[in-house]
């Protein structure tokens, strides 16, 4: 083996070592979470860590549903995530079509409005937003969360970036064939932008599912709470029920994991092609 090859092998070993280290650190908390969720409370902090408990306590996964209204939290979160995602994707791709492919009065100004607000953090105007919502009687309703999540400027911007890449000739040809603008959107734009739509679906779903501050502000009644603030309430109420807290945590991760893994293939693809490049 010459020096060059030796260096290449060394380089490869180094890279795999690095990857292994990153993977280990990424997985460690999840492994600890799952392992602890199957233990007795008193065994959770045993050291050295017993990764596979001798007698797994599956009962933890039954008890979490009885001790807290986890089912209601789940139902609320699924409901909000699905509605918000649906509205966001529909209205964003609709608006993005006009911004990308149509010419109209005030287009630039309107688009500037959207662009300018992408950079403004929601936290900077959440207070007046709350005042407005409560004056309309929306405090402690799911509608409040839907209203504040479903119309983000980011979605419009992202979809528009993708639509810009679809050739104008396609729309032109469809127009000559007598398709209306709505028809073009439905038959040409939507089928041709699946990677971007999938990316937006994952983003919106995950953001809504994981949102913390919004539900913390608006949903103070237990029956309305989402999984995030419900889990937080549980872990601060039963502080020493370590194993149960971990079991509940695992339960909240599963839906996101399913959505993510089933769409994962499109996701990296979508991110790479629709990208959010500067």
């Amino acid at each position, binding site marked *: 083996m010459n020096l060059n090859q030796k260096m290449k092998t060394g380089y490869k070993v180094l890279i795999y070592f690095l990857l292994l280290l990153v993977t280990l650190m990424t*997985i460690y908390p999840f492994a600890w979470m799952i392992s602890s969720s199957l233990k007795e409370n008193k065994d959770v902090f045993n050291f050295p860590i017993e990764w596979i408990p001798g007698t797994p306590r599956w009962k933890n996964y039954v008890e979490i549903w009885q001790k807290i209204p986890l089912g209601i939290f789940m139902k609320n979160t699924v409901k909000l995530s699905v509605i918000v995602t649906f509205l966001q994707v529909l209205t964003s791709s609709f608006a993005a079509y006009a911004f990308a492919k149509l010419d109209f009065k005030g287009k630039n100004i309107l688009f500037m409005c959207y662009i300018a607000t992408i950079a403004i*953090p929601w936290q900077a105007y959440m207070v007046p937003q709350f005042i407005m919502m409560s004056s309309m009687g929306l405090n402690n309703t799911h509608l409040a969360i839907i209203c504040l999540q479903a119309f983000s400027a980011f979605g419009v911007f992202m979809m528009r970036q993708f639509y810009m890449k679809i050739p104008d000739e396609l729309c032109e040809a469809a127009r000559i064939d007598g398709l209306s603008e709505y028809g073009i959107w439905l038959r040409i734009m939507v089928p041709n932008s699946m990677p971007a739509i999938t990316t937006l679906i994952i983003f919106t779903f995950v953001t809504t599912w994981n949102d913390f501050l919004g539900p913390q502000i608006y949903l103070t009644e237990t029956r309305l709470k989402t999984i995030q603030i419900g889990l937080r309430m549980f872990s*601060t109420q039963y502080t020493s029920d370590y194993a149960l807290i971990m079991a509940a*945590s695992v339960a909240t991760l599963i839906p996101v994991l399913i959505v993510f893994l089933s769409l994962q293939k499109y996701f990296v693809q979508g991110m790479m092609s629709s990208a959010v490049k*500067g």
Partner: protein
Amino acid sequence: MTTNQSKLKRKNDLIAYSFILPNFLGFAFFTLVPMIFSFVLAFAKWKGTGNIEFVFFDNFKKLANDRAFVKSLSNTAIYTVLVVPLTLIMSLVLAMVLNMSIKGRNFFRTVSFFPYVASLVAVATVWRFVFSPAVGPVNMLLSKLTGKATNTLPYWTTHPGPAMVLVVMFSIWKNMGYYMVIFLAGLQSVNEELYEVASLDGANAWQRFTNVTLPQLAPTTFFVTIMLTISSFKVYDIFLNLFAGGDNQLSDATRVLVYQIYNTAFRSLDYGYASAMSMILFVIVLVITLLQFYGERKISE
């Protein structure tokens, strides 16, 4: 323009507006209007009921002498200064590695992205347990390695220094995968031929990186820096879930800007004062964004 043409133009305009309207209505009502309202409230005193009393710059004068607010601002700034470059470097390195043709590439990509989609409350709770000063496995291991008792080791969840280290590590762990994917996207547009030219010129790996990869990635790097900085300045839920107990209160060592806004508005019901704090957040984010846009334009020239 004939009347027919202008009629057609108007019809086309109306069709275009109909596409935008559903999103714009929601956007205008729930984003634009509250933003404007926020500007007004920042200069007023208002507890949610009764008349809004304009006090002009009083809120901002009060902010300068508000010890808790200044502390929250400095904590947020320290956090940002640490998180932005570290996350940037880690995610760039990871993206470079995962852009090579190596075995198990897709697996590694998926794994490193997972913390980003995992629910924050769940993972923050595990981290709190794992880093628990007295019984957590991290300090147990450290105690074994150093022979020190756990009560002499870092109090990750309560002491200012270790707490900052913990939250920065957590934040990198949580978000690295996201920025990695953005860098991966950026790397796809790097011109392969330039690498070959550089190799022929005898450039080594490091020189290829600094002379080919980095300049071509500049737009992506700017984008990532902006996103990272903005998200660091609005950090709240990470701190709350790592450090606060059942009362949802953060101590001086761990309070951040958005926590302060939240507390002032929703606990003390001091909407005007909270809006003034929001203005500070807004201005900081705006200045950073403008600086970076300006910088990007300069570099690309």
